[in-house]
């Protein structure tokens, strides 16, 4: 029995897929081998912005061993229209042009052609034989530069849109929106302290270990099968259907194990090209990206510029806040600035707010989701301004956050009102933590130390569509088929919710992630929705099984079904104590009373029931000579609603923190004057390793989510939100110098200290 009164929920069973993964038996994309398999490679643009004048594939096609070459002219021409593909809103023409450039290349690394050959080496040789004639155009990679009049224009037909209304202005600004609540000018007039600061963040990649891959087989009957690493098999199916203009019924996606995604494995890149090459050759075609292709040809999270202004009274009440947020969309519209705007002031109760968001195209890869997309950029700005206000007022920064924290009934800056949330509870838990209550010893080695805190918010998406199909074995175990790909232990977290509902052990459930022909539509594993949304379906499946088992018991015992109770995993007839049996006991006989017991359930909850909040505390030590920042201690506090499997909640928190630390201290796409990324390898793109960090301490707060039968909140996104701001505040505490540009890498810290005498 766990502490929360559940038998399964809150315990820590070994994950169902654990043995396969640690023994190397789990099947990933690179493991796929099929009869007659060909290997593909991609020709990519060397220019960040150029018009394609001609593509000559004749030399490549004549190369021995080459079986096919394709370009954008082999893709159907797609209309300029938006489509809602699960949780991703995609302009179909842009999606197609991002797969293979049509007319123009818009970033270095943009795919222009694909080759299939008898092996990878021949395919790579053939790529070099494709002759592309370019007219090189001026490029722009910075968000503010791209917004200037006279900036190089990426899309000559793109006009700025405001809340669905197209303006007449041709610009790189795809979209401008505004949230306004109250009267910010009046609020600032009431304030005794007003702080306004500017911030920049750089392009950062999710850095998943497994690179993108796809193996496609387009058979003689026109049936396309794709084996791929993805966060959403049905989303891939829909994208393939739209990009290739073929019925969804002709596309089957087989999701394989996924070696990390973090939001970056939802859009398709290789899959349509592999499909075209397979159609052309009649053979299956396998494509796998190299690391530099992942950096330069897939979607990172955007660089951004933010200006944030906040005001508070001398007694510590926030009165007003404004934000100007410009996010890089990359080559095509669709940055996460909307999500960032929905998060930027959400941990606070502020009566007067205005937020202006701008989605801006630049000559970089089309951005994609990365854990709480848009929110980390936003929190970096807000949380350092809040720190500065707290300091000016002479109040503890966490007590200031508690005093101004959002709670049930608080209106969000973007309009809606919070339901039951755990914002204040997480902040109070951080305030009362042993870490925060402890004193930070001075360094004995000439370095300086400081402590910083920051909070963060992520919506958690609205549950989404999920399907589960189960069959009961005669021994009472259950085979559970699901459509949610498992990127963070969700086989376990979903199986545990089913087990809890029907009174079994987690190990009695055998979860399988299956292909799109074998289960109902299931939205992507992303946005912190899966343990909530597919867990919701698991609970509903358990309820369906209980109803069915009552019917079976009714026949076996010859009693009315509505006189059978189910409690603590046992079915019993109210009027005869002898007529009772556990789920497993009944399962052995149930097949005789109506055939195999099966159930299929699909759900689509109305909402996520309030988002996730986190507050982090970090101690750092800084070498003033080199600017290097070392993490001495880090504690992450987060509201999980109900922690289904606490180890995986802790794992998500720790993983998010580590990625946030990398974002804060080191990671960035470094571009040269030619618009080319100069650090497209893990040697030069500096991500934290186990040698860089201490064990990340975690405190799970549980404020049950009223919209979920077990109180679940998604946990995967919000832990990446506070780290950069917490680190900036810690660096200030140590040095007296505030850094407002990410990453706070050794050269930047050293320079800032030298300039400011820190």
């Amino acid at each position, binding site marked *: 029995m766990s502490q929360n009164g559940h038998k399964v929920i809150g315990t820590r069973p070994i994950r169902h897929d654990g043995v396969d993964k640690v023994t190397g038996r789990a099947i990933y994309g690179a493991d796929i081998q099929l009869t007659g398999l060909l290997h593909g490679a991609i020709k990519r643009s060397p220019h960040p912005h150029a018009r394609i004048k001609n593509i000559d594939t004749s030399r490549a096609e004549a190369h021995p061993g080459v079986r096919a070459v394709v370009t954008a002219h082999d893709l159907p021409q797609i209309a300029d229209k938006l489509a809602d593909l699960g949780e*991703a809103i995609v302009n179909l023409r842009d999606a197609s042009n991002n797969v293979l450039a049509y007319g123009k290349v818009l970033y270095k690394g943009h795919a222009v052609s694909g080759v299939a050959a008898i092996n990878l080496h021949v395919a790579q040789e053939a790529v070099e034989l494709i002759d592309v004639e370019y007219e090189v155009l001026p490029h722009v990679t910075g968000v503010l530069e791209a917004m200037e009049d006279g900036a190089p224009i990426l899309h000559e037909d793109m006009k700025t849109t405001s*809340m669905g*209304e197209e303006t007449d202005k041709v610009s790189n600004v795809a979209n*401008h929106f505004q949230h306004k609540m109250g009267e910010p000018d009046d609020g600032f007039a009431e304030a005794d302290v007003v702080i306004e600061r500017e911030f920049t963040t750089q392009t950062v990649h999710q850095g998943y270990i497994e690179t993108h891959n796809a193996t496609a087989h387009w058979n003689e009957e026109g049936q396309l099968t794709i084996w791929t690493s993805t966060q959403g098999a049905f989303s891939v199916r829909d994208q393939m259907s739209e990009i290739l203009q073929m019925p969804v019924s002709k596309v089957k996606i087989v999701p394989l194990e996924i070696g990390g995604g973090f939001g970056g494995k939802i859009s398709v890149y290789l899959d349509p090209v592999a499909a075209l090459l397979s159609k052309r050759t009649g053979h299956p075609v396998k494509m796998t990206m190299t690391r530099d292709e992942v950096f330069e040809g897939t979607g990172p999270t955007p660089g951004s510029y933010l200006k944030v202004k906040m005001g508070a009274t001398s007694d510590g009440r926030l009165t007003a806040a404004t934000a100007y947020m410009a996010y890089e969309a990359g080559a095509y519209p*669709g940055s996460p600035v909307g*999500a960032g705007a*929905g998060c930027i002031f959400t941990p606070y109760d502020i009566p007067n707010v205005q937020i202006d968001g701008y989605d801006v195209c630049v000559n970089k890869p089309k951005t994609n989701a990365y854990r709480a*997309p848009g929110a980390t950029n936003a929190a970096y700005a807000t949380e350092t301004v809040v720190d500065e206000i707290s300091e000016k007022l002479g109040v503890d920064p966490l007590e200031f956050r508690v005093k101004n924290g959002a709670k049930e009934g608080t209106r969000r800056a973007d*309009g*809606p009102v919070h339901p039951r949330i755990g914002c204040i509870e997480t902040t109070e838990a951080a305030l009362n933590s042993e870490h925060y209550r402890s004193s930070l010893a001075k360094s004995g080695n000439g370095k300086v130390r400081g402590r910083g805190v920051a909070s963060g918010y992520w919506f958690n998406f609205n549950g989404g569509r999920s399907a589960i199909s189960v069959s009961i074995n005669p021994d009472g175990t259950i085979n559970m088929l699901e459509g949610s790909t498992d990127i963070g232990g969700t086989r376990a977290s979903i199986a545990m919710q089913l087990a809890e509902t029907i009174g079994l052990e987690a190990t009695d459930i055998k979860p399988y992630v299956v292909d799109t022909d074998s289960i109902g539509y299931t939205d992507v594993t992303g946005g912190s929705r899966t343990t909530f949304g597919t867990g919701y379906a698991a609970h509903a499946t358990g309820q369906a099984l209980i109803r069915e088992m009552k019917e079976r018991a009714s026949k076996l015992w010859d009693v009315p079904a509505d006189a059978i109770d189910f409690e603590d995993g046992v079915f019993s007839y109210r009027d005869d104590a002898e007529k009772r049996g556990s789920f497993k006991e009944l399962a052995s006989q149930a097949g005789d009373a109506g055939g195999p017991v099966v159930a299929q359930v699909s759900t689509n909850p109305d909402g996520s029931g309030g988002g996730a909040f986190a507050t982090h505390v970090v101690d750092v030590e800084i070498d003033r000579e080199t600017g290097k920042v070392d993490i001495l201690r880090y504690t992450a506090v987060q509201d999980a609603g109900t922690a289904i499997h606490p180890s995986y909640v802790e794992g998500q928190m720790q993983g998010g923190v580590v990625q946030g630390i990398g974002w804060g201290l080191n990671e960035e796409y470094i571009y040269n004057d030619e618009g080319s990324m100069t650090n497209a390898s893990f040697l030069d793109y500096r991500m934290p390793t186990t040698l860089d960090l201490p064990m990340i301490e975690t405190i799970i707060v549980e404020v049950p989510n009223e919209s979920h039968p077990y109180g679940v909140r998604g946990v995967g996104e919000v832990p990446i939100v506070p780290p950069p701001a917490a680190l900036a505040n810690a660096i200030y505490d140590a040095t007296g110098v505030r850094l407002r540009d990410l990453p706070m890498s050794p050269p930047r810290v050293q320079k800032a200290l030298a300039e400011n005498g820190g």
Partner: protein
Amino acid sequence: MATIYIPSLMRDLTGGKEIIHIEGADMRQIIANLETAYPGFKQRLLEEGTQRIKPNIAVMIDGRNARRILLDKVNEDSEIHFLPAISGGI
């Protein structure tokens, strides 16, 4: 009547009003009545010739995401927001 919060960039359609009250038992009725009272909303909110919300706009009813086909029920005391849809390939 349901309370509609008008985004600042759509307030040109409501003469600057931030909050308006509209009759309707579901979102289709709400938008039809909104269009009657303040012409131009249908064009801003719906895909051309359809009863579907544009993909780049999210509708929230009482803090919950409404479905794009506008069949969600609306109560007398419901609160409705039109927000930019969260995109970015989530």
